[in-house]
């Protein structure tokens, strides 16, 4: 039995056509495998940028893969990308909401410590990177960290628009479908995101 987190997901699933023939199913599975293999790493990195935690990012990506495969595999493959990212972004938002609730609850409890997910608690931001010796790699790594920090500082919708358009390469229509908003909103979010990032990173880059 399919599992739906949100009502819109459930409604969309009604559009699933009847079961296909065996050969068609095999072909569909092959296509789905190819699609997921192509997007999984970028999806993971995007989730990691938003959530900071690699395990949470893996969970969200895995959940998005399962939901796409269970509920939308029979849809045309051209529709998979925006659908997949819509599920992924919903998963990221749900997890962030749960974290916010947990943080508030923990703060309310007497003697509780600050949530380890909070911005100031990440030790990686304050520790010098002792990994690669090559200065170029080190600079790239630092630049990526600054970019990630700047992306996290953006409002969620601006970050989504920037990552989907610029990192994933979705067009405006695809991004609008993935974000569940109008194309005009995507353009606005993207433009503001670029402006904010330029202000934050302009001097460094």
């Amino acid at each position: 039995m399919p599992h739906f987190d949100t009502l819109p997901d459930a409604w969309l699933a009604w559009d699933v056509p009847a079961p296909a023939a065996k050969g068609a199913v095999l072909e569909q599975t092959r296509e789905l495998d190819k699609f997921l293999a192509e997007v999984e790493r970028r999806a993971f990195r995007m989730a990691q940028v938003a959530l900071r935690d690699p395990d949470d990012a893996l969970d969200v990506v895995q959940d998005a893969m399962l939901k796409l495969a269970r509920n939308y595999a029979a849809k045309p493959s051209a529709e998979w990308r925006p659908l997949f990212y819509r599920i992924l972004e919903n998963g990221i938002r749900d997890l962030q909401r749960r974290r916010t609730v947990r943080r508030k609850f923990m703060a309310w409890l007497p003697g509780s410590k600050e949530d380890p997910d909070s911005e100031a608690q990440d030790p990686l931001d304050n520790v010098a990177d002792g990994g690669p010796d090559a200065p170029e790699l080190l600079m790239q790594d630092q630049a990526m960290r600054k970019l990630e920090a700047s992306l996290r500082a953006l409002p969620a919708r601006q970050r989504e628009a920037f990552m989907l358009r610029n990192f994933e390469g979705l067009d405006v229509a695809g991004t609008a479908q993935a974000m569940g908003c109008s194309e005009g909103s995507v353009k606005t979010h993207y433009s503001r995101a670029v402006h904010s990032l330029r202000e934050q990173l302009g001097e460094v880059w």
Partner: protein
Amino acid sequence: MTEHTQEAVRSALEDRSRALFHESVDGLDLRVRSRLTQARHAALDAAAAASRRPWFSRMPLWTPAAGVAAAALLGAALWLGLPGGHGITADNQSSLEDLDIVASSDEGSGDAIEMLQNDLDFYDFADKATNSGPAA
């Protein structure tokens, strides 16, 4: 800053951030890659299982639940009577049985209907006598 320069800066930021992001994707460690591959295989298994299920089993979970709830509500309404009604009581049951007796009489003779029409006064008297209780 001119519009042309602004556009150039914007484009440089987009290009640089995209390049950095893709480098970080290429640099993912083996543990993460392995877990992503496992997740993909699990998803493909789920897709194959979903394609084998008949269409009606892919209905959303709340649909059969709503059907069961509606059936239960209808059953309760029939059992207890409609809102504002009095439900099925012993008196109503008795009246239904009487009507059934009248209706099941021999259609050709029409005795039952004729009897009712002729002896209305008698039945009225009998009803009052029954309701007034036993004679002291």
